[in-house]
């Protein structure tokens, strides 16, 4: 079974409306690369000019922020969910 990348509504205008995609990625970084390879116009919204994940975009592996899992190199296993969530809420 592959992993799933879940896409927030704000990004779906770049994904032809798709709410999620499947991927065979082995790490979070590969998953993000799969996503932006499939939808190139999403690239600059996911990563900044230095290639870092944008400051206002949070990436979760299942329930956990990937920054607590060693960042985007953390490995994936079958059935994992990668979530992209704009980080503009709260306080």
């Amino acid at each position: 079974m592959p992993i799933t990348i879940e896409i927030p509504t704000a990004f779906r205008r770049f994904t032809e409306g798709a709410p999620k995609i499947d991927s065979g990625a082995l790490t979070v970084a590969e998953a993000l690369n799969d996503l932006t390879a499939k939808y190139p116009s999403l690239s600059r919204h996911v990563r900044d000019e230095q290639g870092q994940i944008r400051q206002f975009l949070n990436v979760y592996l299942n329930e956990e922020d990937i920054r607590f899992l060693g960042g985007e190199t953390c490995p994936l296993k079958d059935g994992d969910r990668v979530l992209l969530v704009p980080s503009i809420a709260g306080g």
Partner: protein
Amino acid sequence: MKEIHYLRCRECGKKFANAPCSFCEECFAPLEVSYDYETLRRVVHRESMRDRAFNMWRYSEFLPLPDGFVPSLPIGGTPLVKSRRFAERLGVKNIYFKNDAVCFPTLSFKDRVVATALVAARRFGFDTIGCSSTGNLANAVAAQGTQQGFETCVFVPADLEPVKILNSAVYGARIIRINGNYDHVNRLCTQIADKFRWGLVNVNLRPYYAEGSKTHGFEIAEQLGWELPDNVVVPMAGGSLIGKIAKAFCELAHLGWVEPKQVKFFGAQATGCSPIADGVKRGLPRFQPQKPNTIARSLAIGNPADGPFALRLIRESGGWAEDLSDPEIIDAIKLLAETEGIFGETAGGVTAGVAAKLIEQGRIGRDETTVVCITGNGLKTTDAIAADFPAQEAIEPRLEAFEALLEQHLQRSASAQPTHA
């Protein structure tokens, strides 16, 4: 009058029409409300304030409100207390406490932000409103939401202080307890706002919500006689308030209501949840999120949405950030209560204690004017300090029993005095 406010991206500057949206569709950075300041300059003057009641609505033109808006509750207008004994103890001349622990109606500064958020909720046609909250915001949303006839639903971490849950439930709001910390609650709310047509005040209504915080800053400037302080010490959870006080000061200076001044902004956090303070102290380009573990539950946001802006503001203003351990927070709550008669919640202890620390470090000058922001009431966080105040033994209602007790107390305090050779 034509509407003079609109949304603007805080990073790329792109302008957007008013809508229940909190991030830029181009770069996904947060949106904030901006104004046509030239029109603002014409329609409101400092003198206009003279005839207005002292509450947050006196600054209506600086808030995202529709033309002809009539407020229903007198929110804000809290005291700015000039310190005597706290200042003496630290050897400081001019220190003030801005006391939102007595903000109407729910005893925290969150009453201000909810007020402007609900105006936006009404305008955008939401029937159901809600929030993710560490407690104070839920209280404010519950009180004002139900009072204004909205379906009201608040999301809180399951282990929140029972008092804060009760203080939301009593208004008839629906409480959803989430197994997780605030950051989990917040993520869920972001997904709910994405899927349901609900007005979540600190998610899709966040630009309008955050503007309410400016009134805390406007009041400080006005209460200082239309002058800006040298320093402000602000508690940081999501990191929004500190930036909005700065925005309020900038707007007043821009309109010529106060002399422009380089105010230093100091951020206060609990050591058990200090991502912004840690970023400042270690000089990090980006803060590192943390797993909160502190009694200062209202500041327990490990992944603060406005953290990047707070970090930048503190650095650029020449300020600093500090943090306090849980025992230090309890000591500071007591110090504030004993010296100023203000019972602040745990976040109030954090702010007061951090102010003391910054003065002792010399980062805040003893001759400067400093405002310390107390943003919530100690009655909401009694659990944190209850163990320090065990119940006293009761005595019989007889004078001799009282005299015996007094004698006991005198002996105890005598034995507590240091002995001199």
